[in-house]
């Protein structure tokens, strides 16, 4: 049975074109040209953090605005009761936003991996180049490609390392 909308005129179909194949009338051909150009990235993208893919591991020194959650009081007497509405005498606990310069690391497809302080980045860069000049890199397999890929590797390692710290 043919789909009901085949009998509708263009006005009723609100501009949706019918598929040229009569057997696929139910498939809209609307926007075919633009849809063929669209690329769907199945990985989550964070426009606040990620960058346009460059095909290489990247470390960018950039301004960021990290948000730190304010630690809530642990004792019962000072615990904030979320049931009580905000009032002139009861203030909301807002996160603290600050501006900072950080070395942000990205994968070749532009995904943000993590960040380092610029001081730590400089220390690691100096250590990397010093180790390279001293011949340490010859002992490492697979050989190092560049500093940026090693920094991304460290950040992945830190992210995936098991957290053994338990606050006893």
């Amino acid at each position: 049975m043919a789909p009901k909308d085949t009998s509708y005129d263009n006005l009723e179909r609100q501009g949706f074109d019918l598929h040229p194949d009569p057997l696929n009338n139910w498939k809209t051909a609307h926007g075919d040209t633009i849809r063929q150009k669209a690329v769907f990235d199945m990985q989550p993208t964070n426009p606040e953090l990620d960058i346009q893919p460059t095909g290489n591991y990247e470390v960018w020194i950039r301004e960021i605005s990290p948000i730190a959650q304010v630690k809530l009081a642990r004792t019962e007497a000072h615990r904030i009761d979320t049931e009580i509405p905000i009032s002139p005498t009861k203030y909301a606990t807002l996160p603290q936003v600050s501006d900072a310069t950080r070395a942000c690391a990205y994968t070749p497809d532009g995904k943000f991996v993590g960040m380092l302080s610029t001081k730590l980045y400089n220390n690691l860069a100096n250590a990397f180049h010093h180790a390279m000049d001293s011949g340490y890199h010859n002992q490492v397999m697979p050989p190092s490609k560049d500093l940026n890929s090693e920094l991304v590797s460290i950040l992945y390692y830190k992210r995936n390392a098991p957290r053994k710290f338990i606050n006893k």
Partner: protein
Amino acid sequence: MRALPNHILKALQAWAIVTKDRSASDSSFGSSFKEVWSKRKRNMIFGSKFNPLATKFTGFSVCHHLYDDSVMLTLVRYGIYSSLSTESATATFLLLQNWKSLNANAYMQMLRKYPEHCTILGIIPQASVTYRR
């Protein structure tokens, strides 16, 4: 990233002539330590040596590993046995956790077992140990 506060490391370097970090984190690289060891082999790219337990401890070192009782017991044993089996001056400064002032951990018992070779130099209050990034 996990790293001891600078003031503790600097005090050990200035007043205890510590030159080796046996438990390097990433922020130890490029620091003023002459030698650093890491448990991640790939960190040789940054000039660290691999596996602090591959050789005995000699010289003056600082060691601050994971908060794990078995790891800390291994390090205490390693530090003591290294000092017993070497002719050169050897001192290993370990930063051990003292949860809720309990000292019944195996590594604390080990310290008491060798009073001539190890001692507790001091206790750093929790508020003075803030990890840097």
